[in-house]
């Protein structure tokens, strides 16, 4: 019961914040709503007992990426942006196509399991109090099976860092 309350609470906040984020005129408001959407996603992770990912989402996504976004937004002149047209000319076509996509995938989820031999597996998840310790499990997996992707990710971050520094340097 607690699981269900938490899920609907966080899911509601996530969807509402996302919808608000996409429609605000003021970019700072959009950023704030994205922050709440990300925090709600972290809550979903916590509800799924993925504790390490919960805190990584908060530290990296909210505490790192969103701070970066907010910094850049403040360096951008907002007054001019507020007067201009916010939505592109193709907004209605885009909306229809996106909703069609949503409808297709939604129907696929809805009918899965109702047709024989198709659809999502009928599994039951392990009970919450019998799950292994999350941080230890993720760490073990990261350094055992997924060591190569881990190293490649660090090279990727190094490349991104160098790229950002190069772009920020003044032309000599």
């Amino acid at each position, binding site marked *: 019961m607690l*699981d269900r309350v938490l*899920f609907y609470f966080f*899911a509601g906040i*996530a*969807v509402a914040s*996302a*919808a608000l*984020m*996409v429609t605000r005129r003021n*970019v700072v408001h*959009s950023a704030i709503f*994205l922050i709440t*959407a*990300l925090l709600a*996603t972290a809550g*979903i*992770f916590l509800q*799924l*007992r*993925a504790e*390490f990912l919960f805190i*990584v*989402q908060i530290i*990296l*996504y909210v505490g790192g*990426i969103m701070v970066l*976004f907010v910094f850049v*937004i403040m360096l*951008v*002149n*907002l*007054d*001019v*942006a507020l007067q*201009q047209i*916010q*939505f*592109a*000319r*193709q*907004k209605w076509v*885009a909306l229809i196509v*996106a909703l069609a996509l949503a409808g297709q*995938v*939604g129907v696929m*989820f*809805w009918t899965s399991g109702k047709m024989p031999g198709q659809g*999502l597996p009928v599994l039951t*998840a392990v009970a*919450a109090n019998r799950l292994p310790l*999350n941080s230890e499990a*993720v760490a073990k997996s*990261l350094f055992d099976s997924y060591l190569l992707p881990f190293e490649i*990710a660090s090279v*990727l*971050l190094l490349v*991104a860092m160098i*790229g*950002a520094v190069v772009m*920020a340097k003044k032309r000599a």
Partner: protein
Amino acid sequence: MLPIENYLFLSLALFIIGVIGVVTRRNVIVVLMSIELILNAVNINLVAFSRLYGDVAGQVFALFIIADAAAEAAVGLGIIIAFFPEPRNGAGGRNGFVEVVA
């Protein structure tokens, strides 16, 4: 854990809202933020299935997606800062808009 459909629909909703944001908005920064929303929707999907199967690989994948999103946001925002130069002589200013070429 709730039945997997709940998480799938949540992930779908966030994904579609992100797609609408990317395709519809003209402000580059809002487009980048919508991309982050799409990545988060995918993360929810991955973690939900990881919990269903009891395999922690889904969470590790989501971790890599977060790291990747960080790198991409950094580079994307750096490009915005580099592309829209500082305003000169009181011009309109860096306003982060992608001009639609008619």
